[in-house]
């Protein structure tokens, strides 16, 4: 089983890298989906089959589809790719990379030189959906409710934000615009 873990880990890392650094948005998304699938495999290997399924269904399925829609709506073809290319200069990513590598180094230090105290591994059984469900609807009931409200808010928010097409995003600007319009009205009146 270890080999599956390693394999899917390599796949996940590779695909994530491709997803992040790819210039073509749709390609990047496809890589990301593959990466998510690989992570789902890892989930499964780690004994969380229910979550693996959810990962595939929700993340790789639902969420990524949303992305695809949006990318398609905003897609401007070759120009976008050229733009992405121009944006991915060395100077753009040099400093962030340094910091991220430093962070990674610290992480490695943490993982291997001060390894976490590991609880004794007891048996190799998976945690079944049944257990998850039990936990979810007993101890974490409040969390579920809140998540539900969050989703609700997300839905309404997304609808609301997506709906308003021509409104200004700040009332000050609106006032300014009103002023400008009244001023121009006055001008036109004067002209008349």
């Amino acid at each position: 089983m270890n080999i599956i873990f390693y394999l899917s880990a390599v796949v996940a890392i590779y695909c994530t890298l491709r997803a992040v650094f790819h210039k073509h948005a749709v390609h990047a998304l496809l890589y990301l989906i593959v990466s998510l699938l690989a992570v789902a495999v890892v989930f499964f290997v780690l004994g969380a089959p229910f979550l693996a399924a959810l990962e595939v269904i929700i993340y790789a399925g639902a969420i990524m589809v949303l992305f695809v829609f949006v990318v398609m709506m905003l897609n401007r073809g070759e120009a976008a790719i050229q733009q992405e290319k121009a944006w991915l200069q060395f100077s753009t990513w040099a400093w962030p990379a340094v910091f991220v590598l430093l962070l990674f180094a610290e992480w490695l230090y943490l993982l291997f030189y001060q390894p976490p105290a590991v609880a004794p591994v007891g048996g190799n059984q998976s945690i079944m959906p049944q257990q998850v469900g039990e936990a979810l609807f007993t101890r974490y009931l409040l969390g579920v409710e809140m998540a539900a409200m969050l989703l609700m808010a997300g839905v309404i928010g997304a609808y609301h934000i997506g709906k308003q097409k021509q409104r200004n995003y700040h009332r000050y600007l609106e006032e300014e615009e009103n002023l400008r319009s009244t001023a121009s009205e006055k001008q036109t009146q004067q002209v008349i």
Partner: protein
Amino acid sequence: MDVFHLLWLVPAFPLAGFLILALFGLRLHSRAIAWIGTGSIGLSAILTLWIGVHFLTQPPANYQYSLTLWTWFDINGFAPGIALYLDPLSLVYIFVITFVSFFIHLYSTAFMRSNEGYVRFFAYMNLFVFSMLVLVLANNLLLLYLGWEGVGLCSFLLIGFWYRDEVNGYAARKAFIVTRIGDTAFIIGLFLLVKQFHTLNIQDILQQAPVVWSAGATAVVWVTILLLGGAVGKSAQLPLQTWLPDAMAGPTPVSALIHAATMVTAGVYLIARTHVLYSLAPAVQLLVAIIGLLTLLIAGFSALAQHDLKRILAYSTISQIGYMFLALGVGAWTAAIFHFMIHAFFKALLFLAAGAVIMAMEEEHDIFKMGGLRKKMPVTFWTFLVGSGALAAIPLITAGFYSKDLILFDAFASTQGSFWLWLGGFVGAFITVLYTFRMVFVTFYGEQKKPITHNPEEEKAMMIPLVVLAVLSVIGGWIELPHAWAHFTPFSDFLTHVLPPTNLKPDMESQEFMLQLLTAVIVFAGIYLSWLAYVKKPALSASWKNTSLGRACHDFFYKGWMFDQLYDKLFVKPVVWISRIDPHDFIDYIYEGFGRLNVLIHAGFSRTQSGYVRWYLLCIAIGILFIFSLILFV
């Protein structure tokens, strides 16, 4: 019915007059204004006369009567009242104040007629009389201070009566501020008295002071010095005398009433009123005498060089009050009060006559541009001459002789007097004669230099006061004859109920006659000298004036011994300079600095808010890195 119960009406009439004029004056006819303004004082004067007669015939117990109207405030026993106190001293004062005021008001009805602000004038004048009456009738020092400041206010308002001219405003301000300096000393003295006695009732203090304080105690020295500060400010004595000559900017009746007859003698009243304290502090009393002496000499010399008729009279007023201070300083209390009364008569007379002259000359003040008025204005001339005679103390026939002679004699003969004090007063008397008759001769003799357009002699309202005051200036002295002549001294006897008699050195009475003779000689010598210099041979004075020493002296005296210039350099300039250096309050800069600092810091942090989302994220990453490193390696 006890007439003394009506005492409160004496100040109340002028107050009522003031209130009516202040509230409704703008709608009143000028005749009504004159009636109200003068009538209120007249009522007051009649009442004073009535009370005075009662006081003489049926005196109250111990010759003192007090009337508490209401308690001003009462804080743990410190309870000054709005309370009046009548004794011979205050009776003399209210008598002089009401009568002289009445005649001056009467004079003003005609004198001020052509002026706008007629109602304002009478309102202020009535307020002044009220304040002055409160000052002398107060039974505690706080109420006295109320009157004291009230008269100061009226003096300020009336000096600046013609408010359009900045010069008048300056003179008014100067008078108010200079006297205020003295008043501040006065009020600090009051604080000291409160601390010591927990009361400001004059009689209580006077009774307790000899018990609490031994002679020459530090506290009593301080108190008397501080009160003296108030007195010299109000009475225009050295070193606060500079305001009075400038105060002549006011209308002439004002000069007559406030700056000659009544207000400026408030200092004399204060010292006489608190004489017990001064007796406890002989050093300060000597200081009073010295101040009086120096002032009378300095002012006399200054008067000698003036050209402005009113300024001559102003300096002469300062000088005459110097005599009163001299008298107070040598313990001749009654002599000081006597001179106050006589001086009020003749100086008011002189000012009123001078006002008539100035009116006839169309606001010309320079005596050298007048001349020859004797024939055209006989009433004015004769009354002015009587007043001048009193001022110069012509023996026997003028009241001034009796009062001034008494002071000179006491300066010599009193236990606190000395030859030098007498000599100073004697020289001063000579100078007085010189400048007085210089003024008379230059104004009324010689050629007429300017025609008279409107002769004030036609105004009865102006001439009656002159005649009455002239009569008083002659007969006023006969109520107090010199010791050497006869023991006819009803005035002193009357005041003895309040003020202690003068202690004379033994065997002095015999010398009095000598001194009187000397005085008489210098008076006539002085008259002759000025006649010589200004009538007979005017070239004499002119040639003296043309020598360089003469001109230097003239300038020096003309400018009042340069006191104005000195104070200007010493006090006025620095104060103005200090005010000007920092009009915008440097403290504000400190807070402004805080503000600037905040803006600066804001500008620094504002840079971090660049608007680049990725920059924010990088910051977050750095933050994570930092926290991790902190946890791991620290």
